[in-house]
């Protein structure tokens, strides 16, 4: 179809500059009708910039966007939407204070005699949801639903309009397996209808399952456009990172932890109402314990219970042999247990503070207001962490909000490591960051463990849990069903344990 069919959308020679930095430099990109196209690249490769240029959220400094061969100029997302280009952004951009149906039709509500026809609004909402196999009350408020449902509603909104190009930016990051399957079914249907779909995801499995063609970007330039079938995974990763395969390969696990080593943290019968029930956890010195489970299985609740973000309703926590019952994260940190929350944007990084200030936050808080850490020492400390963790750009005075996701995650880690904790609890530290940064974080966790730090590691990607964890605790419905050494597990066997419904278990 390459030469015969005209591309539906084309971006030619796209260049975007932010002050001195060039985010995108002379990139060509095209999409054909009825294909699923993936845009791959590390953080900072220019994917988001290209998407924004395509959807009218950003203007090109050079180059042009062509729609059906004709040059177009989008001044706002509204213009692009009129032209049939619809986007579902990574961070859910809906309105929690309105109903589900309204979120779907907002801006093009059906009207009768000039007034909004509410009955029809609900009908259209229901129909759009049904197309995604979602059975929820269209008249309910969006905020009463889970993130996954909200994500699906965002997709329903995009689907329910005149559609020629659909841009999905990390659409699956909060969906479970069934929901992903449902989404893929819809994508295939749209493909039949001749819609061009841009599917951006960090999950390589999903990219290989659904995409026909892959465009790879690296540091703002085009690496190439490939047929998915003809591109081996390892080649793809290599093209994205620009490194040789040996460098990409994750480090081998340190030998299984010697079980005679000192136990650092013990949780007995940990219970949090509507979260986890009677969880027993044991963490040795220098051990990485992976937590595997579906969304809502209690994996985050367990992490929050250990670190006193949520109050325990029962059970005891022992750190270093002394029984403690920390009631606030501050007390937990005092007993040297630190938590990195799952939502980096809202609960972690403070956008407007600089990298240095972000790193120093927890340490200064621990010192107390009156014992200010000397600026010179703070700077030295921050610089050493930036160096040690490879935070890029290595600019201490840059607002942390301007860093890519992977680097923000490293800043968060630096903040906690500056406290020199005994136990580090990481809740999905690799979510929404790129393969390269992911490998960096995984390796980092391994190195930290080798140096004696105990880590609790949560991830939605089972492969990662297995790779990073010495042992894996499997959670289902708020209960730890088993804790196994990761040596004896494969991704498939772990998947079976995580997903096994209760009826079969009994």
């Amino acid at each position, binding site marked *: 179809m390459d030469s015969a069919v005209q591309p539906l959308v084309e971006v030619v020679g796209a260049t975007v500059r932010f002050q001195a930095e060039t985010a995108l430099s002379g990139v060509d990109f095209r999409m054909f009708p009825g294909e699923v196209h993936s845009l791959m690249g590390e953080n900072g490769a220019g994917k988001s910039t290209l998407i924004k240029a395509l959807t009218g959220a950003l203007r090109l400094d050079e180059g042009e966007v062509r729609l059906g061969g004709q040059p177009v100029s989008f001044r706002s997302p509204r213009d692009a939407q009129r032209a049939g280009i619809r*986007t579902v952004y990574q961070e859910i951009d*809906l*309105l929690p*204070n309105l109903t589900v149906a309204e979120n779907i039709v907002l*801006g093009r*509500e059906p009207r009768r005699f000039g007034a909004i026809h509410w009955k029809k609004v609900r009908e259209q909402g229901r129909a759009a949801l049904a197309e995604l196999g979602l059975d929820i*009350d269209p008249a*309910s408020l969006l*905020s009463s639903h889970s993130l996954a449902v909200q994500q699906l509603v965002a997709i329903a909104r995009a689907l329910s309009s005149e559609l020629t190009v659909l841009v999905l930016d990390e659409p699956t990051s909060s969906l479970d397996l069934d929901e992903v399957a449902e989404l893929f079914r819809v994508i295939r249907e749209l493909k039949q209808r001749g819609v061009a779909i841009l599917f951006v995801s960090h999950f390589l499995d999903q990219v290989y399952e659904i995409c026909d063609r892959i465009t790879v970007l690296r540091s703002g330039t085009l690496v190439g456009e490939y047929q998915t079938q003809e591109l081996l995974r390892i080649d793809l990763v290599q093209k994205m990172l620009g490194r040789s395969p040996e460098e990409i390969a994750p480090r081998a696990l340190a030998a299984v932890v010697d079980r005679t080593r000192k136990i650092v943290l013990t949780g007995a019968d940990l219970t949090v109402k509507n979260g986890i029930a009677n969880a027993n956890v044991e963490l040795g010195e220098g051990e990485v314990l992976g937590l595997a489970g579906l969304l809502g299985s209690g994996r985050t609740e367990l992490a929050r219970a250990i670190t006193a973000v949520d109050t325990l309703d029962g059970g005891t926590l022992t750190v270093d042999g002394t029984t403690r019952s920390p009631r606030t994260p501050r007390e937990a940190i005092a007993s040297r247990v630190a938590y990195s929350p799952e939502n980096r944007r809202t609960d972690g990084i403070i956008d407007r503070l600089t990298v240095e200030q972000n790193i120093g936050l927890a340490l200064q808080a621990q010192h107390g207001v009156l014992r200010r850490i000397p600026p010179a020492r703070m700077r030295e400390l921050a610089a050493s962490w930036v160096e040690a963790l490879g935070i890029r750009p290595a600019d201490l005075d840059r607002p942390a909000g301007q860093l890519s996701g992977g680097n923000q995650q490293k800043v968060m880690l630096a903040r906690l490591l500056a406290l020199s904790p005994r136990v580090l609890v990481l809740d999905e530290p690799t979510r929404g960051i790129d393969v390269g940064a992911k490998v960096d974080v995984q390796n980092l966790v391994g190195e930290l463990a080798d140096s004696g730090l105990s880590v609790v590691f949560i991830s939605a990607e089972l492969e990662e849990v297995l790779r990073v964890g010495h042992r894996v605790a499997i959670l289902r419905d708020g209960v730890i069903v088993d804790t196994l050494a990761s040596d004896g597990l494969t991704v498939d066997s772990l998947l079976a344990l995580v997903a096994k419904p209760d009826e079969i278990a009994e």
Partner: protein
Amino acid sequence: MTDTKLAAQKPLDGVFSALNSFRSRHASWIPVFAALLILVVMFGFAQWWFGNFLSPRLISALLLDNAFLLILAVGMTFVILTGGIDLSVGSVMAFTGILCASLVSQGVPATVAVPVMVLAGAAIGLLIGVLVLYFDVQPFIASLVGMFLARGLAFLVSLRSIKVEDESILMLQSTRFKFGEWYITPTGIIALVVVIVGVLVLQYTRFGRTIYAIGGNEQSARLMGLPVARTKILAYVISGVCGGLAGLVLTAYQGSGYPLNGTGAELDTIAAVVIGGTLLTGGSGYVLGSMIGVFVYGTIATFINFQGAEQSWKRIIVGGLLLVFVVIQRLIVTRSSRRS
């Protein structure tokens, strides 16, 4: 689980699911019901206290005495729903009021004077909207500018009270349509029409829904392709127009214009809107709630007058109620954010 257990649970489940579905659909109405409950309790208490509080005459007077506040509250609801605030409304009311009195005393017919005052209000609203949108000024500061400007203009028109002799304006107050013991004046009708228009616009137009969308998340509303700029400016213009109409109603009510009218009225208005269940952070609230808020406010004032107590008590009680409502709202917001 046995069958009998299941059967026993069924009707209860029905009730629970109905409750749940109500909560997931209409959570934002709860503060309005709370305000209504408080109003009813206050009526009940006053009736028990005085024995003759609840009469058609008194309720009719409640609308009459608070017509200007009701109009201001409708405009303020639009602005607060977008997540903004308008401190200028009291001054705009004073300015347009004295402008009207001055114009008609110079022989300008009311048919000219009234559109002029409404336009004057709209212009100040437009100024605030432009400041907020294009110069990125905090709504608090931008409307403070509007407040000082309007008050200054009021003094510019006249330093002293101007009596209104024009019949076509005075009749707005003096005409009484009676239904037995009940009555309503044209000023009351204007206020009710403003309420009805406000309800319809917010509920049944795309503009109205965009107001809610902006209050929910301005950035999202923009990415969804909604006309954010136009809508935000229009919200302030509507508040300005309401200020102009309130100026007319107040002038008719007092039979004169006075440049010091409505000092602090903006705060009374905000209090009434918040008591009526509108979230100050925007995105949640109703014009009908604001109307109930105004009546709660008015009932407190009437109660104090009946009692012959110090006027300062009015402020204290309103302050206390405000505190209660802000706390209730806070609880609702934290609860719903925890659930999601």
